[in-house]
């Protein structure tokens, strides 16, 4: 909020000299008159220059800091908790796995909520296959969405086929009638080029609203996009850097789930499978309950691994469940008021791992943007270490990790079966699905277990997945994480 030198360079209040220099070079590269002939860029560049001159000089920075009001200096109410599957690491002469559960907890509750303006841009696929029931379903749920938003929140709508057009210019959510009448003119025809839609949506959301606006893209599609996947992913990365998560809704069975997962995850969002109107309804119900209560956005984990340590798997389990691509930074999405963002990390520790009193898994920092705070950038340091265990005793992993991993192991079984099918091994895929069904039954999840068994039967007969079964199993095993309440007690 407001202009100050820290915000100009997107730095936290406790930035180190190293961070200040890095931020300056990055910003300067983008706005230097040689690189960016835009007139606006020139004035931005001057501001950057001015901010750097003050912050990079210790005494000038101190003088500047003391001129700022106290609320700038307050520590951010965010806690980081890291739990390891082993309380101490055994020194083994073979590789071993260790799991970390990382919880980022927001100490501010909804009562402290400072409302930030919201801009939601819907990107609706209007290709031929959406004609009829699907498009109707989307249009009829837009009203539900508008009712969920505050009346002053901004909505815009882009429709795309092989090209994109703006159906609703950024409009306040309370003008339901004009938005709905614009939607009735929507007609389905043409192919699916997701890039066109994303581009138009991102441009629209970029040019509207201030830096405090919580922006969000919602992509609704039912098909494959052809040839522009790489460009879409690059765009999603750009969106992440600007703090705009993309949530993707896949309708029906034809859409490319691994692509939409990657697209959504790399922007900090999430992909959801929509089988019918109730899934769409529930998505809006969940997502827009929380859009006003986003405390921090663009939460990114930048990390380095310790010597002899390899990060083999990363999975975000809250606020929504998405496998993450292994690279620094890991996009963690949003942090809501009073909630937490959690992820599970799997490390492979080799016998060559560095000695010393403790094993260092991962060090790094979680950076985020808090729109309601006077210095909007914030940094939380992460330093996960575990002492070496000389007694070779086996410790019992904490319940929280076991619980999360038991769910994750089901999701992994499902992934395994998919990979088996991709490599043509029907027998193994069947076996993995049967194991999955066994565990689901043991947990009392009869309905999903039954679909899994049906699918196992289907692949044995036809040697291919049924498209519906494949998606159902994937997204429902994933949503098992969301059911971790007391009602899920062991039978």
């Amino acid at each position, binding site marked *: 909020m407001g202009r100050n030198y820290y915000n100009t360079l997107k730095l936290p209040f406790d930035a180190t000299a190293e961070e200040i220099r890095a931020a300056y070079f990055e910003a300067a590269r983008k706005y230097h008159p040689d690189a960016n002939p835009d007139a606006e860029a020139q004035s931005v560049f001057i501001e950057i220059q001015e901010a750097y001159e003050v912050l990079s000089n210790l005494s000038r920075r101190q003088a500047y800091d003391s001129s700022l009001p106290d609320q700038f200096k307050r520590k951010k109410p965010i806690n980081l908790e890291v739990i390891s599957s082993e309380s101490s690491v055994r020194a083994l002469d073979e590789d*071993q796995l260790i799991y970390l559960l990382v919880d980022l907890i927001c100490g501010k509750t909804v009562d402290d909520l400072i409302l930030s303006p919201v801009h939601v841009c819907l990107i609706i696929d209007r290709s031929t296959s959406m004609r009829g029931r699907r498009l109707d379903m989307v249009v009829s749920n837009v009203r539900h969405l508008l009712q969920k938003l505050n009346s002053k929140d901004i909505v815009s709508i882009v429709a795309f086929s092989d090209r994109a057009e703006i159906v609703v210019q950024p409009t306040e959510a309370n003008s339901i009638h004009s938005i709905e009448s614009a939607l009735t003119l929507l007609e389905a025809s043409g192919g699916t080029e997701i890039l066109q839609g994303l581009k138009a949506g991102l441009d629209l959301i970029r040019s509207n609203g201030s830096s405090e606006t919580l922006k969000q893209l919602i992509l609704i599609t039912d098909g494959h996009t052809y040839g522009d996947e790489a460009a879409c992913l690059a765009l999603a990365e750009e969106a992440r850097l600007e703090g705009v998560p993309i949530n993707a809704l896949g309708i029906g069975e034809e859409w490319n789930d691994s692509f939409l997962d990657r697209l959504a995850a790399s922007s900090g969002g999430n992909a959801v499978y929509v089988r019918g109107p109730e899934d769409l309804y529930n998505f809006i119900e969940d997502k827009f309950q929380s859009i006003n209560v986003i405390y921090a956005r663009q939460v990114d984990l930048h990390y380095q691994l310790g010597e002899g340590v390899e990060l083999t798997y990363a999975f975000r389990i809250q606020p929504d469940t998405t496998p993450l691509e292994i690279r620094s930074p890991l996009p963690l999405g949003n942090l809501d008021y009073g909630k937490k963002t959690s992820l599970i990390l799997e490390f492979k520790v080799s016998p060559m791992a560095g000695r010393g009193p403790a094993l260092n898994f991962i060090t790094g920092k979680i950076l985020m943007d808090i729109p309601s705070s006077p210095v909007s950038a914030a940094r939380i340091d992460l330093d996960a270490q575990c002492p070496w265990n000389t007694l070779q005793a086996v410790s019992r992993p904490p319940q929280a990790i*076991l619980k999360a*991993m038991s769910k994750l192991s089901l999701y992994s*079984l499902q992934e395994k079966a998919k990979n088996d099918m991709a490599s043509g091994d029907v027998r193994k895929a069947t076996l993995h699905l049967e194991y*999955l069904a066994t565990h689901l039954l043991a947990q009392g999840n009869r309905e999903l277990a039954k679909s899994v068994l049906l699918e196992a039967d289907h692949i044995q007969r036809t040697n291919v997945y049924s498209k519906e079964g494949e998606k159902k199993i994937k997204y429902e095993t994933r949503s098992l994480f969301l059911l971790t309440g007391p009602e899920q007690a062991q039978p």
Partner: protein
Amino acid sequence: MILCPNCKHQELTGALFCSECGAQLHEYDDWTTQSFSKDTPDAVSNPVISSQPTKPKISMSTDTIPPDEVVGLLVIDANRMIHLRGRSEYTLGRVSDDQPIVPDVDLTEFEAYLQGVSRLHAALKIGEQRISIRDLGSSNGTRVNGQKIVPNVDYPLKHGDAIALGKMKIQIVISLP
């Protein structure tokens, strides 16, 4: 490396669940919570093979246990105890007409057919230090503590374990001879 007790898949040390079959890997002896209610004084003491530090509580039929008893099978639905003594291996199943090989333990009287027990369902091996169960390729499978076991592979049992032959639930009771 650790070996999955269920499917024999090799996993890296530290893995919590088998990546092949999803079974929880029991490298940690004491964590299974046992929730059997105890309604009579515990006649079984000092389990033979279990290394559990605490004595598990189990529900018992009111029968007193003969002194040379080593293994008892408690058929849970009927609340009846079947005493096994004198042999090192028992086959479990049900007897039906024109069947050449009959099982050592006939479960017909417990509605074995309706419960999905095969004629030759499983074999129980009783050794000095170890008791194990092996599914003999039954139609409806065998479970140990809810976990389906792979046919024709021995699976170790300990005092208090619940096995299921098809739908028939049986608890293993082990005492010192």
